[in-house]
């Protein structure tokens, strides 16, 4: 009896442990499947035209996504200008100055902001910016993406600032520097690597967002000059093309998806490599 039970337990052990390995393998292989599909279907459409031309009229073949790529870059620039300073400064406050109650409130609301579904964020910015400004604009899209970048930047900035050793700060203070001087000249440079990677990760995250752009950036067939006009964006165009029936649009959707994924993955891989080399590795 005992021996049978032992055999059962031993075999169960082997089976379950193998299953866990299989599970991990299955999940990882999904990533490669996604990449593989995109490269296979999108790779052949990545030509010079794709990167330099504007979209062709509906139903005609050819044309490219040049305006969507530039549009996404402009939106990211705007998001960086709005979201990153708030996140960084807020992180500095929380790490260096914060009072208990107020810091708790800031962290709590940042968490709240992080959890807002992206479609609701789009609706909010639409009500707040688009309707009063009477127009869909790159600014509105940038604001939506920027707000979404704040919580990630805040959390990673605070974390990396806190990780700067206390003795560095105390040494600086002992030398007569004031607090702000310490922060500016000693703490920030020390935490620089982590903070920048946090910012890049935040931008990579918002670069792929589509829902907030539906009601803010809106889309554009042409180049979008300045900041107060609607603009095309890579995720928006991929979405529009993917749900259509035109094979040429499908082809371009794959290519656009590949470009988008490549950018996001490169940012993620690059920053994490830098982080791990620096020794401080924490997932967000």
């Amino acid at each position: 009896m005992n021996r049978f039970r032992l055999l059962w337990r031993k075999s169960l052990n082997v089976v379950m442990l193998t299953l866990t390995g299989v599970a991990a393998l299955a999940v990882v292989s999904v990533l490669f499947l996604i990449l593989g599909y995109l490269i296979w279907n999108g790779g052949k459409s990545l030509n010079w035209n794709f990167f330099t031309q504007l979209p062709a009229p509906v139903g005609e073949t050819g044309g490219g996504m040049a305006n969507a790529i530039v549009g996404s870059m402009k939106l990211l620039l705007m998001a960086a200008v709005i979201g990153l300073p708030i996140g960084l400064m807020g992180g500095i406050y929380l790490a260096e100055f914060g009072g208990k109650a107020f810091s708790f409130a800031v962290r709590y609301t940042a968490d709240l902001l992080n959890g807002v579904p992206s479609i609701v964020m789009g609706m909010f910015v639409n009500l707040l910016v688009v309707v009063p400004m009477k127009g869909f604009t790159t600014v509105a899209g940038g604001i939506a993406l920027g707000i979404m970048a704040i919580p990630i930047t805040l959390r990673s900035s605070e974390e990396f600032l806190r990780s700067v050793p206390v003795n560095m700060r105390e040494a600086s203070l002992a030398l007569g520097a004031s607090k702000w001087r310490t922060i500016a000249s000693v703490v920030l440079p020390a935490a620089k690597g982590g903070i920048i990677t946090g910012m890049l990760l935040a931008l990579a995250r918002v670069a792929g967002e589509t829902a907030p752009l539906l009601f803010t950036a809106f889309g554009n067939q042409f180049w979008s000059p300045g900041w107060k006009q609607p603009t095309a964006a890579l995720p928006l165009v991929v979405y529009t093309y993917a749900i259509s029936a035109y094979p040429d649009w499908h082809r371009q959707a794959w290519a656009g998806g590949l470009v988008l994924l490549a950018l996001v993955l490169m940012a993620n891989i690059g920053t994490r490599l830098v982080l791990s080399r620096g020794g401080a590795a924490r997932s967000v």
Partner: protein
Amino acid sequence: MNTKKTVVLVCLLLGLAVTLGADSTVLLNAAGATFPYPIYSKWFNVYHTEHPSVQINYQSIGSGGGIQQLKSGTVDFGASDMPLKDDLLGQFSFKILQFPTVLGAVVPTYNIPGVQAELKFTPKAIAGIYLGTINKWNDPEITSANAGVNLPANDIVVMHRSDGSGTTFVWTDYLSKISPEWKSRVGSNTSVNWPVGLGGKGNEGVTGLVQQTPNSIGYVELIYAIQNHMGYGLVQNSSGKFVKASLASVTEAASGVAAKMAQDLRVSITDAPGATAYPICSFTYLLIPVKISDSAKRDNIKTFLHWMLTTGQSQVEALDYARLPKAVVAIEEKQISQIQ
């Protein structure tokens, strides 16, 4: 330090370059119907080539979207297949003019594996399919009109629009006219409470769904079915004849209304009389505010409208839209002068 400075400088320059757009360009933003999107897309593209300083950015988000965004003032003009009745006009804080642009047909497109023939649909069949009372392809109502076609006993997958659509309005307007049950149960509007079916976004989305889903049927503007090489059926008109959507049959449907349009450009031409008339077609409208404060925008919109009524009309037939009747063109030319 040097590399940092150059990076900052490059970024600033890029930012500057990107910000200083071509400010002499007149930028018009419009949104609305997907029904005429292929021809509008062509028009705005050609117009831009002829007038490089004018850019008309049109987003095809559905007639409902066009109406709403025009109301909010976020676009310069809108597009809708559904003409706006007075109660809807009352919700606007400013007056708008409605300009028919082209005539188009809404066709029932389908994807039945093994069936290549052109199917004939009676009004009862279409109403039954969309009400959910007819749910197999070999239902007698369908087979009786299609002798000789081997229709399978498969379930019909019904596709409709998930967004606010003028095409939906035209389709449901027709259904309301030929089916009292539809009229009382569902009604006609850009967005309705569908008894059955899956939703696709835009004419593009419905076409895509039908294309990819076996045994499905959907309603789309004619050019979408043609451009995507999909089969579409004939519909029985009020005279009892099965008519295929074409330039001729659509033009015929509009032939009776030109006189009425002198009073009011908002007409419905579904289930029109006439032996060769196609029963499910519609004008589609551009919604233009009467008062446009920006003079550059105003002048360019007026110029475009003139262009649309003359040069533009010569391009519509290549995309299987029918031209506006000459009488209607004349009425619209006069209406343009109302824009201030």
